[in-house]
């Protein structure tokens, strides 16, 4: 139930006194309430849960986190061997799975 899904705001409008928006989830568009993200602009990414935007997703923070994690990844590759001893769990199929 707490599985919010990120989506892109493609339209903002008002309905029954509430700020609403159309959200694009990788091709599927749904309506969501934007009352809790009054600063939202078209093009922003937001986390949607039970029809409400809970927050805007920070591009800057996302990039910073990924950069940091990729440093670990690069270092790991450079030093080499650790990965080869990793248990073969299902991470290989990660990309094939999609969320609801």
């Amino acid at each position, binding site marked *: *139930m*707490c*599985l*919010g899904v*990120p989506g*892109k705001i493609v339209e903002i409008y008002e309905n*029954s*006194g*509430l700020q609403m928006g159309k959200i694009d*989830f*990788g091709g599927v568009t749904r309506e*969501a*309430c934007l*009352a*809790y*993200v*009054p600063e939202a602009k078209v093009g922003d*990414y937001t*986390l949607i*849960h*039970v*029809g*409400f935007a*809970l*927050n805007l*997703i*920070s*591009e800057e*923070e*996302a990039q*910073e*986190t*990924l950069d940091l*994690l*990729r440093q*670990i*990844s690069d270092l*790991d*590759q450079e030093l080499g061997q*650790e*990965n080869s001893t*990793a*248990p073969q*769990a*299902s*991470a*290989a199929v*990660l*990309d094939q*799975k*999609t*969320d609801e």
Partner: protein
Amino acid sequence: MKHLSEYRDAHLVHAIAAEIRKTVTRPWVLMEICGGQTHAIMRYGLDQLLPPEIELVHGPGCPVCVTSLELIDKSLAIASQPGVIFTSYGDMLRVPGSHRDLFSVRAAGGDVRVVYSPLDAIQIAQKNPDKQVVFFAIGFETTAPANAMSVLQAHSLGLENFSVLVSHVRVPPAMHAILSSPQNRVQGFLAAGHVCAVMGYWEYPPIAKKYAVPVVVTGFEPVDILQGILMTVRLLENGQVSVENAYKRTVTFEGNQPAQGVINQVFMECDRKWRGIGMIPASGWCLRPEYAAFDAEQRFQVNQIQPAESPICIAGQILQGLKKPDQCPAFGGECTPQNPLGATMVSSEGACAAYYRYRAGLQV
């Protein structure tokens, strides 16, 4: 999809797992609070990438699982009444009450409808002025902004045929309850990222300090979860007790202030009984007296409920991280998602359902 696929990168996953293996020197028990995280861990096999020193125990963050049997039975009693349209998030329909579930009420002719958002329930109330529309307002802090807004909307639209059956629970009191139990084994917490998207994480430093456990705000994708585990293990190995954020793209320390404002406008703290766990003081939200007109428990007199729980089900111990689903004698035999004895076998966030779905071949 942006902000999803980057965090499912197999190479990054393996690199972070390798870093965790390099960091760990002794056994640690971590609890992921949210059932959504439990499902992601099982689905992607993340626990199998971890060194044997790291044990993940599964927390109570499954709203469907912890909604008390009394409230489930009340929902069944209300939904069975003529002239009522009972609306709920989908997961609730298969949750076993004392004798039946909402699906069986629907099969018997009750008007039980699944809604995606509580605003859908508002629309149903507007379209059906001759019916009483009840929304089952369950959930943690993640659904509270939506559920609270539905009450404000009903109020401003002057809807007299809309009410909510409130079963809201909060994470921080549950952490207190788990950590103060003499049986507690949890040494570090992965805090539920989407709860924190709403509430921030200003409530956690006093908990971390009081019980000397690090808390790391953690997201839901494989890379997010492993990053949360890595940060927690680093803190534990360094003997640091602090609260950190591994989900910065979505969570700030303060959280969503407008959402917290509306929650506080509509709800107030109350004691709440958790299914399988018992009463936890000040662990719930209920309607403020100003909004009592929208309280389904007052509108429908359903107080003569005598709940009867399955004597076999160990969901309470599972929700507290004391046992794992496959330690239950009924797991996969008497108790399956098709015929659940307890709510943990039902929900897309229940630990038993996660083990059954992703580990059944290994465990049964």
